[in-house]
């Protein structure tokens, strides 16, 4: 068996399931946000912060950001192991994207914490 330490899941099937589960969450979040903007003609600061003050919205948003983190991590690992043959450059690309994805996740956490 080929070992692959830098990916997110524990096995090929784990990666496969994580990719699809995170995609479903991101689609649901996107549909919800599209529905929100379509049904809310005047998105003021009060309406926007009121939406994110709900605990369920915070959880939903963190689930979506976690999905972005997992989906992006596995996706970048897969694409870089396909197309980038120099292991040093591949490690650098994976580092940049993984740190970036974690930074996005943490930013979301602290922003929502303050709402």
């Amino acid at each position, binding site marked *: *068996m*080929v070992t*692959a330490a830098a990916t997110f899941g524990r*096995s090929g*099937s784990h990666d*496969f*399931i994580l990719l699809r589960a995170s995609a479903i969450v991101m689609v649901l979040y996107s549909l919800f946000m599209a529905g929100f903007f379509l049904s809310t003609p005047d998105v003021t600061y009060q309406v926007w912060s009121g939406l994110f003050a709900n605990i369920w919205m915070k959880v939903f948003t963190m689930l979506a950001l976690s999905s972005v983190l997992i989906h992006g991590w596995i996706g970048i690992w*897969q694409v870089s192991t*396909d*197309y980038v043959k120099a292991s040093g450059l591949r490690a650098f690309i994976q580092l940049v994207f993984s740190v970036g994805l974690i930074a996005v996740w943490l930013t979301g956490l602290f922003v929502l914490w303050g709402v």
Partner: protein
Amino acid sequence: MKKYTFSIYRYNPDVDNAPHMKEYTLEMEDSQDLMVLEALIKLKEQDPSLAFRRSCREGVCGSDGMNINGKNGLACITHLSSLKSDKIVIRPLPGLPVIRDLIVDMSQFYQQYEKIKPYLINDDKTPPARERLQSPEDRAKLDGLYECILCACCSTSCPSFWWNPDKFVGPAGLLHAYRFLIDSRDTATDERLDELDDAFSVFRCHGIMNCVNVCPKGLNPTKAIGHIKSMLLSRAV
């Protein structure tokens, strides 16, 4: 008379610094329709240095897999008329190292095939005296799998195999893997699945179906790979 123009990939590492395309022309009667292999044999009479593999000349041995007008196929069962062009470009199978002209080094392809243990494993301590019987229904499950002749047209048309030929088993190997996974007489299903459950061996297939498009035997490796993924996932959840 009709005239075909061939542009053929030439590379002899003993003589050439780099590969190049060489032009040939071949004339034949209007009523004549040769296979690509027959045309190559005629071209070899013009230029004996042209190298390619062939053996059975009837689509059974899988020796003459090559890239014909951009699509992998067997030269011996590809009619010139089916190419719908009088200009024919022939290159070696993509992605594998070229030994000479249209001859590629298939070692990586065979190493992947070897990895899936392409033979029946049965740990039955008391084997039957004559043969392991199988119901007609179980035998029917092998149809569309056992016919593969290992010509490598599918695996060398697969980008996932191009990028990771040392880690991704490839469509041909996986078609054979499923042939043994689904065989009612094989008892090593779990061990076989254990060997395949990494991020490369099976899951690098993203289902683009190039393999199905080129298979000269009309087989469907993507479908077999889908079945393997289902078997792996049903164990994982």
